[in-house]
Structure formats: structure tokens, C-alpha cells
């Protein structure tokens, strides 16, 4: 058997780890573990210096396995694997131990116990490392066609950007018309561009592009496959259309809350911002006094998030009204004004200069809309006011579309606690889903204004283009394999239980045998845990490797 020489690197993560547990002690302990020939403390293992140190030590001490005890593998496992590869060690001879999220950050109050737990975790990691196998990445071809779901501003922008890069796009829209929410809007902040002009231009470009295939009144029926090779069935006007594509962009947008039962909403003289926009489009509004109420049905117990865009919408529309009818009084009743960005702040100031009156109210004591007047307790003046009105405008939040649940199941992607689609990482992968090859942009993710939707769409296109332009993908070989063909009796239980249809039973000269479709396998392990002949091996999580970790939990 080959000589297993393990190197252990324990990261301080500045003070994130070293501040709460005794790193030098963990290093000393690691040196006593079987097969460990070298152990070292790094200030930041993931930094240029840390990586250089790891690579240098691999050469210097002829290491054949590397263990890094630091943060979550989600962030830096690829970094360290690459370092191993560059230093001549197979990237799958690397094992990562999490002593930050799963140790120092949760045991900040107890340095000694945290140190002991870190030692345990390192011991478990080293046990597995000594049994690791070398693996080669699986390479798959990418279908260079893209699918964009949603034909609003985000989806159209994405489709156009992809087509300009020379990729074929299939655009699917649920409604009869393209355009989405912008069809209902009048003018857009900050520069007062007409929504119809912006969206009209996009629709024109998309419909005239030879690379964009558009399906309106269409819904996604089923999604199979994996990054690079998705097979999607679409129902379009009673007909089924099949699309093969390499990546999917979700741009399904959001709905706007209808304030049923709130503030005496009636759709006549007590309306929503969207209804106001439609009236402004037509240009017919007559009123001497207009009261706008913010945070209607938002930031409540049921819907505790801020929809972000409604403050700027209110400021924009209040200014437009004031511009058209300088003698009309416009009041905006708010909790907090959310006017982020340089232009937002400037528009807020301009609205005040134009004479829009902003009144601060407390969420515990909201305004009351009566038949002729609105009563509000002015928090800054400390007294109740009564304002007569001809028109009340309610600013309601964006809410997830009803069908996001169904779509999330089809795509097997998660949603957050409010029902919006959830990104893979809030800072590192804000436009990706955790599933490779699926991206998101616009309000499907979180209430976004037009500008943000456009930039997110361009961002998602840029992310997706990496796969499309390369034309092939390297997939982690952490998949199930038929390790021993002779043991397999072709019983088919594994194939019956595989949730991805990644196992086929095929005829071989030796009889019926299981056959794995590696690129479709997600490495869940159901087949391996089911095979009673032990013919199936889960790469990187073998019975022996996991067994050694369990034994290491107890064996000090």
C-alpha cells in the first residue's frame, strides 16, 4: 500500500477561529494523529500566503493527503482542491474540517470545550483523509441553447443579452403579451422614462431577433436533466413543445398585493399605486387633496419584509401629480422613507421642494381612512391630524407569484421564508441557484425596481454565459459507481429508488446489471444505502470512509 502522508493546516481565520479556541493546541494534537506527518497554523489559509504555504508544504514534506481545518467547504473547498492539484496532489485527496461555523462561532463562551471539539473534528477529518481515493472530474458537453422563464423586463433583458452574445434562446411567458409589470406602469424613476417606451423597445428587439424563440400563454410542464443538458416540456396554447437547453434563467417576477379589507380599499377613490399608474397613463386625474399611505400590508406580522420599491414609487407619483396639478395637496404618510442611492435621495428632496407633505406615522398607530378624511397621528409633531381627501393611494408590497411553489418543485430549487426564490449565497452567488445551471433575476428573487431587474438580468446572463461559452462543464466525481460488477445481481432496487433516473438496468454478457449515468447523478447515496450486495460505491463517501469517521468520533 502507498505511503499515506497527511498534512493538517489549522486556520485562525483572523480572530474568527483563533479568538475563541486554542489553535496551537489543535495543531499539536493533530501531529499526534495516525499518518499525520506535518501540521501548521495559518493566519488565513485561503489567502495567497496560506495557499502558497500549503503548496510549499506539500512539496517539502511529500504530503499525499491534505486536511484544512477552517470554515465551511461551501466557500473554499474549491480553492483548496485547486491548491492541491497545482502542487501535484489529486484534488480529491483533500478533506475539509469546519471548525468555524460548526465550532468557534457557536462555542464562543467556552474556549476549552471549543478547543476539545475542534480536536475531535480534526481527528474525524484525518480518519477520513487517510482512506480517500483519487478521483477524476467528469466532463460533460453543454447544450448552447438557453431557456428564459418570464417575459417581463428582466426576462426580456436576459433573452436579448444572450442573443446578442450569439446564443439561441427560448423565452416562455405565461401571459398572452410580453412585458410583465411594466405594461401597467406610467413613468419610471429616476429619470421619468415612459415605461411603455422602454418595454416596447425591448419587446421589439426580442420579437425581431432570429435567435429568440418566443412562447406566450405558455407554462413549464416538466424539467429533467442537469446543467448543460436540460430537457424541458412546455405547454403552449394546448400544444406540447419540447426544448433541450443547457441553462435556465428564472425571471418570473412578482405580484403586487391587492389590499383587500385594508384602509377601506375600494378601487374607486381608494386605490393602489398600480391603479394610480394606470390612471396617470391615461392622464385623467382630478383631485384637490390626495393622501398616499405607505407600508400597506407590508412590514406586518404576516409579511414582515420591506418591499423596497414602494417609497420611490410614491415619491415619483407624488411629484408627477404635483407637476401636473400644482394646486393639489399631496400627503405621503410613511413609517421610514427608503430612498437609497444618489438619485433616490435627490428625488425625495425635490418632492419636498415641490410641496409634497411627508407625515411620519407609527406602525403601532396606523392612519385610519374614513369616508371623507384620513386621521393620522403625526409622530414628529406628536398630535393627531385629520386630512380631507378626494383620492387615497395605498402603496402595497410585491409578493411572490402564486405559481412560484409549483415552479420551485419543477426546478427543484428552494424558496425563502417569504416565498421568493432563494439564491445560492447572499454575497458570493447572488444570482445563482444552488443547483448548477439555473439562475435568477428580477423580482422573482426579491422586490426589485426596473433598474435593478435590468442589472440582475445582465448579471445572470453573464453567469450563464460561462457555461454556454465554454461548451463543456467539469462535474464533481462525487457520484455513485458500480464498484463491483460481479456483486450486482441486477435486482433493480437501486434504479427504482433513484430520484434522478440516473440508474439503468442493462443487459451485459454477465446478465442484468445496474449502470450509472454519472452526469445525472447528484450523489445523494440512496442507491448505495440500498444495495444489499454492496456492489455500489459512493465516491468520496464510501462505507469505509464514513465508517472510519464514526469510529473516530468515539476513539480518541
Amino acid at each position, binding site marked *: 500500500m502507498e505511503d499515506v502522508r497527511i498534512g493538517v493546516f489549522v486556520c485562525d481565520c483572523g480572530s474568527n477561529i483563533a479568538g475563541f479556541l486554542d489553535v496551537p493546541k489543535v495543531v499539536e494534537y493533530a501531529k499526534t494523529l495516525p499518518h499525520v506527518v506535518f501540521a501548521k497554523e495559518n493566519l488565513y489559509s485561503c489567502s495567497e500566503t496560506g495557499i502558497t504555504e500549503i503548496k510549499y508544504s506539500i512539496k517539502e514534506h511529500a504530503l499525499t493527503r491534505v486536511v484544512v481545518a477552517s470554515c465551511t467547504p461551501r466557500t473554499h473547498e474549491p480553492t483548496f482542491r485547486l491548491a492541491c492539484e497545482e502542487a501535484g496532489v489529486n484534488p480529491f485527496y483533500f478533506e475539509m474540517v469546519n471548525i468555524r461555523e460548526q465550532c468557534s462561532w457557536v462555542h464562543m463562551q467556552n474556549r476549552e470545550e471549543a478547543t476539545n471539539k475542534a480536536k475531535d473534528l480534526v481527528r474525524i477529518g484525518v480518519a477520513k483523509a487517510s482512506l480517500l481515493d483519487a478521483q477524476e472530474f467528469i466532463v460533460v458537453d453543454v447544450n448552447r441553447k438557453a431557456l428564459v422563464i418570464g417575459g417581463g423586463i428582466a426576462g426580456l433583458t436576459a433573452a436579448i443579452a444572450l442573443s446578442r452574445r450569439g446564443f439561441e434562446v427560448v423565452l416562455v411567458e405565461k401571459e398572452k403579451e410580453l412585458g410583465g409589470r411594466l405594461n401597467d406602469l406610467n413613468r419610471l424613476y429616476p429619470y421619468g422614462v415612459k415605461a411603455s417606451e422602454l418595454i416596447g423597445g425591448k419587446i421589439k428587439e426580442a420579437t425581431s431577433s432570429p435567435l429568440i424563440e418566443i412562447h406566450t400563454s405558455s407554462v413549464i410542464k416538466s424539467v429533467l436533466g442537469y446543467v448543460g443538458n436540460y430537457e424541458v416540456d412546455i405547454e403552449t396554447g394546448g400544444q406540447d413543445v419540447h426544448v433541450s437547453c443547457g441553462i435556465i434563467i428564472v425571471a418570473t417576477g412578482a405580484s403586487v398585493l391587492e389590499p383587500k379589507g385594508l384602509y377601506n380599499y375600494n378601487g374607486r377613490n381608494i386605490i393602489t399605486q398600480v391603479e394610480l399608474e394606470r390612471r396617470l397613463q391615461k392622464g385623467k386625474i382630478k383631485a384637490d387633496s390626495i393622501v398616499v399611505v405607505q407600508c400597506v400590508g407590508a412590514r406586518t406580522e404576516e409579511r414582515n419584509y420591506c418591499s423596497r420599491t414602494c417609497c420611490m414609487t410614491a415619491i415619483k407619483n407624488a411629484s408627477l401629480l404635483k407637476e401636473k396639478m400644482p394646486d393639489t395637496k399631496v400627503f405621503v404618510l410613511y413609517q421610514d422613507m427608503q430612498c437609497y442611492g444618489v438619485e433616490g435621495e435627490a428625488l425625495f428632496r425635490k418632492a419636498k421642494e415641490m410641496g409634497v407633505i411627508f407625515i411620519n406615522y407609527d406602525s403601532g398607530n396606523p392612519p385610519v381612512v374614513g369616508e371623507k378624511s384620513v386621521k393620522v397621528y403625526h409622530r414628529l409633531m406628536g398630535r393627531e391630524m385629520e386630512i380631507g381627501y378626494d383620492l387615497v393611494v395605498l402603496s402595497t408590497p410585491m409578493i411572490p407569484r402564486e405559481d412560484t411553489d409549483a415552479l420551485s418543485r419543477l426546478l427543484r430549487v*428552494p424558496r425563502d421564508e417569504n416565498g421568493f426564490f432563494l439564491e445560492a449565497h447572499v454575497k458570493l452567488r447572488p444570482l445563482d441557484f444552488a443547483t448548477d445551471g439555473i439562475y435568477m433575476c428580477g423580482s422573482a428573487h426579491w422586490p426589485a425596481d426596473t433598474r435593478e431587474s435590468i442589472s440582475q438580468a445582465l448579471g445572470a446572463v453573464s453567469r450563464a454565459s460561462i457555461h454556454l461559452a465554454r461548451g463543456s462543464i467539469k462535474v464533481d466525481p462525487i457520484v455513485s459507481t458500480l464498484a463491483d460488477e460481479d456483486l450486482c445481481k441486477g435486482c433493480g*432496487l437501486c434504479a427504482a429508488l433513484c430520484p434522478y433516473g440516473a440508474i439503468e438496468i442493462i443487459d451485459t454478457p454477465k446478465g442484468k446489471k445496474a449502470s450509472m449515468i454519472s452526469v445525472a447523478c447528484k450523489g*445523494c447515496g*440512496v442507491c448505495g444505502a*440500498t*444495495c*444489499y450486495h*454492496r456492489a455500489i460505491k459512493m465516491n468520496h463517501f464510501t462505507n469505509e470512509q464514513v465508517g472510519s469517521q464514526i469510529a473516530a468520533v*468515539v476513539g480518541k
Partner: protein
Amino acid sequence: MILDAFLCGVDGVLILGCKDGECHYVTGNMEAKNKIGMTSRLLKIIGIDQNRIYFGQLSSAEGTRFVELVENFTKRIKEIGALGTEIKEDKEELKFRLEAAKAAVEGEKLRWVIGKKTEFMGIGNKYGEMFTRHEMDRFLDGLIMDEVAVREIQLLLQERPLSVKQISERLKIPSNRVLRYIAGLRRKGVVDMERVDGTSPLYRQL
């Protein structure tokens, strides 16, 4: 793996997974739930407190619930005590029973039944017969009991040839049941008669 952990000497195994329908691997948590449920029944049958295994379901955003589950489980295991306190015999007996249980879960029968459990209870079997939860549980208990007994007999016969009477006394199983298991094992060609001692035949593992 769970039984391996008990064989390593741990006192409890807590497994946490996502909520129903939220599995990253589509149906993985359901499979896990079925398997863990069966292993827990198995513990009960070999005389070990089945609460030593717990499958908790929560989302990754529920920090407080995580703490609650871990603390409750730790408390529960402390109450039950060290592994083996519920068995009056020695450590060897504990190991013997766990080994038999492990062989049972690794066997063909239990893996097929558990693999098909969701289907049996949701769509029905090949003949369209649906199983209720109660029927399924009763069926499983019977099956597990048989499987464990068979594995125990095999373990005993590996060491030395024994008669039905001796096995029956050692395992505290009625001799008619032992005879039935032996007959089954002989049919499979795993066990055979070694010699006749007085009037009773002795069997051995092949």
C-alpha cells in the same frame, strides 16, 4: 452505519434532515425516515431502548429549533443511560445482538421492504393492495423479528454446531420457531446438519 455507531459504543444517534418535501435530494429524507424508523424498531426488538435513535426534521434557517432538538436529545439519552443498561446480560450479549441486527438490516429482505415502503403505502403493491400504517408496522415488526432471529442463529452456528434445543434456550425463542428458521436456512443451503448427538441433530453454518 447507525448500528455501526452503536457497535462503536455511542449511546445515542441523532439524525437531522430537512422537512418533508424540502429535501435537496428530492425524496432522500423520506428514504432516510423509512430506514431510520425501521432501525429504531429493530433496536426495540433486540431489547434496546428505541429512543436512542431520533430523526429530527427542520430547515437550515431554524437555529433555535436545532438547539432545542439537540438539547432534548442529549437530555433524553442521559436519562436512558449508557448503552446496554437495558440489557441485563454482559457486553458480549449486547455486541452479539447488535451484530445480528446489523446483518438483518444489510440483508435483502429488509432493504426491499423498506425501499418499497413509500410505494406500498402510497400507490399499493403489484396487486393494487394498499397498506395502512398499522398493517405496515405490524408486518414490519414480524419481519424484523424473523430476520434478527435468523441472523442470531447464523452467528451462533458460526462458532460451533448446536441443536435446536440449545439454540432455543440460548436465544429464548420457542423451539418450533427455531426449527422453522433452521429449515429455511437449510433450504437456502446456508446451514446443514453436522451430526446427531444422542437423539438431537446438531446444525452448523456452511
